[in-house]
């Protein structure tokens, strides 16, 4: 069984890991069959598989049935003499084992990250039935199998470094279920239903992008195996973000075309997705994804940074003060009377929001691209990101209500106006009415534009999934 698992962690001689995987791997397959993409497990899908970490090994393309996918374990090669480059242990050698002192924190970080990976597969498991094209279907499955591999990456760390507790946590990663009343996933955005392809693209655009920033912060970690694992995950994650960003871009493009065709710019008559519904999905998924960063003022975040467990986005390049013991982050927060007042958060306690700032910058860039499409089409409508205060469940803004512009309002005003800002049942119903599957080679659903190029230099009408 172990010969089939691609890896660069010397699995064939690692008895401890073998023993743990012997138990876990069959349960993983069981989970995949039960909770993985429904209805397509016997189809041949044109997927990339990582079989090594060098430039031609990490992306091997071929047809494969998903249950036969070779989920592997890869860490980027160790950097010799790597030193801890931030926090209280700065300048000391990085750790190749878990220090007992930080065992619980590291385990928590890894379990929380690991839990998101199978969660997203569960959230997306029915989408194959409504795919707009074979190209998109293949991308969905690529994302799914790689989220599965990300789960393997985190499970490797649990198995290798956390003993019996780690094995138990690895089992639990397979028993929680997205959105389940009794055994939900840990983070809320991963319990939300991903009902349709617009939601899928919004999810891969905004929620997977949170994942990118979390992984990037962990890639700075003093615990070297974690840093090296997450660095490799980032290479795969880039494709997921591409799927999300270009997915929405293609919808925006198609909507713009249809607006031109319709005399009063009403695309619903022509089976397109109106821009204001797209905007509402952006509002929904952006705000839910911000919650994943955690509280703006967080003692946990301070501990993680001080201990060297989790850095900031590109800590070495973007920052000069790697101790962050002095200085503060200024943030306008609501006081008891509901007025926004400036609060100074000691820098170390403000790690979450510093990471979030880098994320928002990145999202803004994507928004500009989408708006360029609208501009080119000669339309005046512009999509925008809502304020970071809008619709929050976690953090300093969660106790008040805000408009997408960030103005504080009463609960009743929020309730009465939220149908302008967040998707309504009718919006969901309308979008879902458009979701009829297209399985014919080279064909594409009416509500989305075709991609500009195919996968791995293949043409757009390539048979990405053999049904």
């Amino acid at each position: 069984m172990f010969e089939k698992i691609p890896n660069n962690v010397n699995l064939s001689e690692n008895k401890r890991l073998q023993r743990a995987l012997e138990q876990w791997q069959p349960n993983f397959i069981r989970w995949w069959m039960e909770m993985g993409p429904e209805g397509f497990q016997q189809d041949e899908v044109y997927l990339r598989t990582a079989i090594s970490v060098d430039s031609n090994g990490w992306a091997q393309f071929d047809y494969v049935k998903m249950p036969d996918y070779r989920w592997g374990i890869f860490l980027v090669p160790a950097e010799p003499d790597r030193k801890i480059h931030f926090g209280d242990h700065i300048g000391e050698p990085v750790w190749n084992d878990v220090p007992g002192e930080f065992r619980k924190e590291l385990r928590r970080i890894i379990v929380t990250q690991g839990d998101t990976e199978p969660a997203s597969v569960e959230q997306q498991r029915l989408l194959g039935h409504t795919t707009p094209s074979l190209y998109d279907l293949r991308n969905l499955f690529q994302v799914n199998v790689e989220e599965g591999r990300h789960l393997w990456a985190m499970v490797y760390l649990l198995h290798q470094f956390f003993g019996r507790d780690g094995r138990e946590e690895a089992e639990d990663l397979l028993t929680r279920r997205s959105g389940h009343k009794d055994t939900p996933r840990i983070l809320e955005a991963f319990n939300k239903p991903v009902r349709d392809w617009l939601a899928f693209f919004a999810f891969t655009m905004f929620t997977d992008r949170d994942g990118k920033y979390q992984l990037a912060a962990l890639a700075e970690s003093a615990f070297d195996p974690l840093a090296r694992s997450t660095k490799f995950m980032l290479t795969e994650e880039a494709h997921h973000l591409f799927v999300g960003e270009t997915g929405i871009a293609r919808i925006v493009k198609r909507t713009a075309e249809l607006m031109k065709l319709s005399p009063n710019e009403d695309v619903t008559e022509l089976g397109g997705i109106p821009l204001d519904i797209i905007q509402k999905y952006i509002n929904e998924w952006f705000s839910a994804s911000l919650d994943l960063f955690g509280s703006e003022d967080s003692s946990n975040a301070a501990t993680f940074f001080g201990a060297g467990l989790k850095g900031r986005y590109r800590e070495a390049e973007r920052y000069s003060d790697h101790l962050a013991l002095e200085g503060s982050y200024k943030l306008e927060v609501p006081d008891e009377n509901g007025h926004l007042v400036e609060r100074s958060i000691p820098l170390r306690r403000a790690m979450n929001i510093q990471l979030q700032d880098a994320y928002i910058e990145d999202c803004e860039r994507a928004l500009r691209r989408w708006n360029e499409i609208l501009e080119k089409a000669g339309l005046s409508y512009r999509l925008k990101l809502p304020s970071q205060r809008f619709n929050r469940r976690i953090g300093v803004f969660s106790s008040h209500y805000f408009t997408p512009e960030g103005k504080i309002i009463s609960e009743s005003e929020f309730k009465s106006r939220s149908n302008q800002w967040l998707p309504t049942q009718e919006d969901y119903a309308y979008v879902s009415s458009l979701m009829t599957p297209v399985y014919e080679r080279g064909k594409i659903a009416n509500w989305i534009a075709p991609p500009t190029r195919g996968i791995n230099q293949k043409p757009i009408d390539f048979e990405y999934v053999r049904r």
Partner: protein
Amino acid sequence: MEAIRFETDPCNYKHWVLEVESPIATLWLDVKEEAGLRPGYLLKMNSYDLGVDIELADAVQRLRFEHPEVEVVIISSKRDGIFSAGANIFMLGSSSHEFKVNFCKFTNETRLAIEDATDHSGQVYIAALNGTASGGGYELPLACKEIYLVDDRRSAVSLPEVPYLGVLPGTGGLTRLVDKRKVRRDRADIFVTLAEGIKGNRAAEWGLVDAVFPPSRFADSVMERARKLAVEHRNPTGIRLDYLNPTETDTEIRYRYVRLKLGPEARLARLIIEGPPDDFVIEKDPAAAGADFLPLRVFRELDDALLRLRFNYPEIGLVLIQTRGKLSNVLKMDAQLSAHKQDWFVREVLLLAKRVLKRMDVSAKSFFALIDEGSCFAGSYLELALAADRTYMLDKPGVEVALSDLNRGLLPMGNGLSRLATKLLGEPRLLAELMNSSETFDAGQAEAAGLATVAVDELDWDDEIRLAVEERTSLSPDALTGLEASLRFAGPETLETKIFGRLSAWQNWIFQRPNAVGEHGALVMYGKASRPRFDWRRT
């Protein structure tokens, strides 16, 4: 600091909701973040401060007196995913040492009152942990007879004080783990150093909780269990506990039967308790007297006075206890109480008296009882003298003390023995004689029988008392606290004596040490940017 009040009622609760659907009552914890007793901290995640616990203590008391028909009390939380995060760390961090210790003491007494209700009042407490319970948030469930935890793969029980704060669980958590729930001590060792705690089936396997249920079945399963426990179908009618409404001045708090006089001497207070009137009689239905029932009222007033002494007058070190009334009236009252002890209401009054006297036993104040002319130290009132560290008795004809059944086991101390038996541990023959005696004792006899410490001649009285007071109030208050706690509890150890003994010895020591409260101590560094630094030498 503004004086703390200990009386409240369900209409004024800020942090609890009491729902009574007899025979089951539910106490919902729903802490208002910004309604702390003092400014400067937020009570996040159902964490608590003294104000939250005062309401809990009130609720436990009221359930016994106002809802005797209730057989099961469920303690749960209104908040999703969180039962309670325990005592608020920032409140503790900003409190004086004496406040912290008294806070812990009070919360301990409330937990013990819960166990007392379960064991003796037929009100069984069960904890329904619908979310994570950590620190004091798990110690409260430990005081309940049964603990149920939701199994949502997230919610855990934990005692993270050692790994997170460098202090101990302060409300009997360690003792109850191994002594009450009988968790294996090696497992307990792992549990209390595991900051994130233990969840799900393992929590049940290790005996940390009685069972776990998934969220969808949680409420129903707990309710089903509660219904199984509520089988007696008794239907007495409760009484209403009114407010005591004492008259307060700078030098005196005057209740109906109890007066607390402050000063004029430095660090000195006097508690003066009035005895029952000539016509005191217990009706056929004792509860008909309601909250005016004299012994109930006397002990409620004493309770309130003791709490105020602890929290609002930290500098008072010595309390002189006096009584005023007729010996015979107390004996008549006690005889009737003893005759009615099966009645639910009289039982509750006796249990209350027991708890108040225990409150006195663990108070960090010196108590001297003064038995002089016009005093009525018999039976229940004599128990105050037996609880005191010393008793001075005027040697004069007519000044007498006497025993009743209430001295012979109805009001046991935390060690399970009567105060008389504890005092006479080395004189079993004398104790046996006293168990049957119905005489009165003058000063000389009382001294010989262990009912008074010193018989004092009338000519010496004023000087003797003055000297005793001046000497006592000049000694180190810390040494006295340790001294009294060591001498008061001879005899066997119980859960209760262990809890208070460990608390005062270990927790209070750790709370003073640099490893907790020094510049880099764990308690000080909690929630800050860097990690604590320890002095690694074990003592």
